Structures are given as C-alpha cells and as structure tokens.
C-alpha cells in the first residue's frame, strides 16, 4: 500500500480533557480505581475484625480520620455517579419484547432504581440494627 492514511493527532494522556463527555467518561472509569482502594480498606477491616475487639477498635478509629472520611466521600460520589449513569442507559442494552412492541425504556430504568433503592435500604437497615 502506497497510500498513507491520515491519522488525527491525539494527545495520549490529556485527550479526555478536550470534551465534557470525555471528562464524564473518565470520571466513570476512575471509579474503578476508587473501588479497588475501597475494597482493600474493606478487606483490611475484615482481617482486623477477625483479630478481635482491640484490632477492630483501632481500625474503626483510623476510619474516622479526616483523610479516610474524605476518601470515602469521593469514592461515594464517583460510584453513585457511575451507578446512575449506568442505570440511565440500561434500556439501550435491554430490549424486552412486550406484545408487538418493547417494554418502555422508562420502566426499565425505573425498575433498576427501585432495586437499587431496596438493596441500599437493606444495607442501611442492617447497619442501623447492628
């Protein structure tokens, strides 16, 4: 092939800053890093829990530090944002036939939010009871 196709120059590390929708895409993707860190903290918590009340108490005190609270606030924000974005596009992935037509997208989104609400409520109630 002698033809030389045009390759649009793209900034390798900063391309996502050029458009709002790219920034939002990266905001969703970054939640994976925050989730990994959160899960590491959670697993450490399980280890401390199995080591007895003193270790657990220490762990709980470290969670109350400003850095830990700030991290969890950021992680909560990003994961919630990502979850809502994903629920909002679920009709694109789920085409459920209903008679001659499909189940309306709004209903599918609503169902996801309803399940999300129930699951979250269960977690909150368990935490409140314990």
């Amino acid at each position, binding site marked *: 092939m002698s033809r030389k196709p045009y390759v649009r120059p793209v900034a390798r590390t900063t391309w996502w800053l050029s458009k709002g929708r790219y920034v939002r895409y990266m905001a969703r993707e970054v939640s994976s890093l925050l989730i990994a860190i959160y899960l590491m903290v959670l697993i450490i918590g399980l280890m401390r829990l199995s080591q007895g009340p003193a270790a657990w108490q220490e762990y709980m005190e470290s969670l109350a530090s400003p850095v830990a609270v700030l991290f*969890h*606030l950021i992680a909560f924000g990003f994961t919630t944002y990502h979850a809502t974005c994903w629920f909002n596009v679920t009709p694109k992935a789920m085409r459920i036939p209903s008679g001659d037509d499909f189940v309306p997208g709004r209903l599918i989104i609503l169902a996801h939010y309803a399940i999300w609400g129930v699951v979250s409520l269960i977690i909150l109630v368990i935490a409140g009871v314990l």
Partner: protein
Amino acid sequence: MAKSNKPIVWGLFAAGGTVSAFVLPALIFVTGLAVPLGIFGDDALSHERIYPFVSHWFVSLVLFGVIVLSIWHAAHRIRITLHDFGMRGDGMIGTVAYFAAGMFTLGTFFALSGM
C-alpha cells in the same frame, strides 16, 4: 474455531459491574461515612455486634461474592483506564491488575474463613 473462555469471563465481568452499581454506593456510605461519623450512634458496628453477623456463613458468603466480583470487575476496568490515561504495556498492566485481584481474593477468603 478456537475455543474461547470469553463468555465466562464476560459473564463474571458483567456480574461484577452489576454488584458494584447496586451494592457499593450504600456499602461505602455505611462503612466509610455513616459509621465513622457516628450517624448510627457511637457503638454502631461494635465488635460484639458485627462479629457474629459477619462470621455467619451466609453473610460471609454474600460478602465474599460482593467483594470478589467487584474486585475482578475493577481490576479489568483499571487495566482499560490506565490505557485511556496514555499508559502503554497492556500485557504487564493486565498481569499486575489480575495478580492484585487474585491477592485481594485470597485476602478476603482468609479473613472470612478465619472467623
């Protein structure tokens, strides 16, 4: 056609994403914000209350499922995200990401089975 393990891997990835979306915001709120800030009271999740709950086999099983599915999902997305941030060397990044996910899985297993 070559045999592919992709359906299984993608199924687990999808399950991890679903679990992450439905469970993690509330879990982060509870363990990272509400309890440390004392929203549920000062002795919420005290050792004498939380230990019998978490060490129950069913709760342990659910926690293990939530953590492990989420961590493998996150590991794969971190691999893709690092590429998006301009990092190259996908083989190496993938190896490190999945190795870390394997370590997290073992850590979760031993923490829960040690109760």
